[in-house]
């Protein structure tokens, strides 16, 4: 069997159930890089995706950060977009209708400045046709608590998740930040508070300085690092989160090949998401699907479930 023929995956089962969302394939688009999906639909067949996770949505429009917002680093990308978005009402009216017919599942990434704002966005999204799940981005600064991200504190995380949980029956995936001392306690706090799944990692905090102008390169000084540079850090945190909870984990962070994706799955992830990779290779999700199918075929597996967490079992980590 030729790898190029694997587009339809033969008898192989690449389907996975992520927090109650049935995904055709285990490869998703991470929140942010693909915006609300309009533009990348021309470069990428969305029917090959498990889901698109749309860019963070807040209650009111957010203007985002001062430019420059992007900078390339060694094998990485720094971004400080600042969650610019048009707000939930605009999203429902202008973006959601097209997403309904995009051929893939839709997960909406939710952001806010306070637990009340997260809850209000969730409540507005609840019950809307074409939304298959929510991803709660808890990396936003907790304005009332000195500006540290919600997701850096297990208690703030638990409160936030409980509050959001009350607003919806939709599958709830909590997106964790890697900028913490101990990912396990945050992961457990989210699970206990009612999360159906976890996703990680969000970007690592970083910066660059423009030595010519003697000032930070990004308009916002700090940005978030993504791309292949962060992959080993992401993999370790996925490994730890999967050890800490029983709910499924969506792994992401620098995935650049089917082998990278397999590493996340062997570490315990149910599925994977691609962010930065889309920028430099819009065909990456399709390549990864093919590579995963090829791996299962070559090794004689029937489904991805057979390799989920296999590296952990070997190490006796469960």
């Amino acid at each position, binding site marked *: 069997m030729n790898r190029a023929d694997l587009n339809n995956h033969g008898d192989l089962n690449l389907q996975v159930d992520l927090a109650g969302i049935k995904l055709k394939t285990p490869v998703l688009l991470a929140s942010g*890089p*693909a*915006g609300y999906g*309009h533009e990348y639909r021309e470069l990428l067949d969305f029917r090959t995706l498990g889901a698109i996770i749309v860019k963070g949505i807040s209650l009111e429009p957010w203007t985002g950060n001062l430019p420059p*917002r*992007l900078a390339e680093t060694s094998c990485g*990308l720094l971004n400080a977009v600042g969650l610019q978005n048009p707000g939930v009402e605009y999203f429902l009216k202008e973006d959601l209708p097209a997403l309904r017919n995009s051929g893939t599942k839709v997960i909406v990434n939710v952001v806010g400045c306070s637990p009340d704002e997260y809850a209000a966005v969730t409540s507005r999204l609840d019950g809307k046709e074409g939304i298959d799940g929510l991803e709660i981005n808890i990396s936003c600064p907790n304005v009332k608590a000195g500006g540290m991200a919600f997701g850096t504190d297990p208690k703030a995380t638990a409160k936030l998740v409980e509050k959001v949980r009350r607003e919806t029956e939709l599958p709830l995936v909590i997106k964790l930040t890697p900028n913490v001392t101990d990912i396990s306690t945050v992961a457990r706090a989210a699970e206990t508070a009612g999360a159906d799944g976890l996703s990680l990692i969000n970007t690592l905090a970083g910066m660059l300085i423009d030595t010519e102008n003697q000032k930070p390169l990004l308009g916002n000084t700090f940005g978030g690092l993504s791309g*292949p540079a962060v992959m080993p850090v992401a993999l370790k945190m996925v490994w730890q989160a999967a050890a800490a909870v029983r709910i499924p984990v969506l792994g992401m962070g620098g995935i650049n090949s089917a082998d990278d994706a397999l590493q996340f799955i062997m570490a315990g992830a149910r599925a994977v998401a691609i962010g930065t990779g889309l920028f430099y290779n819009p065909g990456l999700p399709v390549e990864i699907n093919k590579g995963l199918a090829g791996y299962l075929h070559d090794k004689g597996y029937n489904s991805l479930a057979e390799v989920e967490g296999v590296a952990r079992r070997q190490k006796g980590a469960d």
Partner: protein
Amino acid sequence: MVAPGFCRLSLEAPKIAAAARPGQFVQVYMFSGRRPMLPRPFSIFNANPGQGQISFFIEVKGPGTAMLAAAKKNETWSLLGPLGNGFPAMPEGSLLVAGGAGIAPLVFLAASTQKERLLIYGAPSATMLTCPSSDLDLPGLITLEATEDGSRGEKGTAPELLAVKIKEASAVFSCGPCGMLAAVKSLCVSHGVPGWVSVEERMACGIGACVGCVIKTGNGYRRVCKDGPVFPVEEVVFDEQG
């Protein structure tokens, strides 16, 4: 190589060549998870739908432009384009103002019509007026060169020359460094002449999805790749950040 640190790159891209309008750009993919990682945007310098070719005029600045400058014949590159809005139609009596490598989109614009038009082409010194004069040899196009050190053409900056010529202009089209564009803006505004500028910002997706390439405008942050790269000059906010 047309001048030290500059090159002119021609590529076969029939679809882009057929669809391209002046002021639009193309993303050149590097397809790698390491520097140069992100696709690099370049203005279309020249489009020949008949031959199915486009060309870029590239200043070598870092790893991506260095790779392109070293590109060999028959190499294949992945392109996405034409992207962006492009310039509006140019009226009779327009003034084109180019600073250094900013010449690229203006040459395509100048070549798109035979109307009377004047190009002001400025740079710090003669060695930075790198565009081959054969590319500027267009029917009806008059070119005025300006160098700050007077080593070629008029002595002075492009905006200084513009200040002299703007009174006769029906519209201004400009591309170049931020400082120059800011000066062009004040001249256009104070003389009530409509102006358009092509601006640059670092890009990731290049198609409007990631909101990474915004600039400050009178209408909030706007995406250079999708809402631009051409903006009405009065809309763009130039500040020290630029």
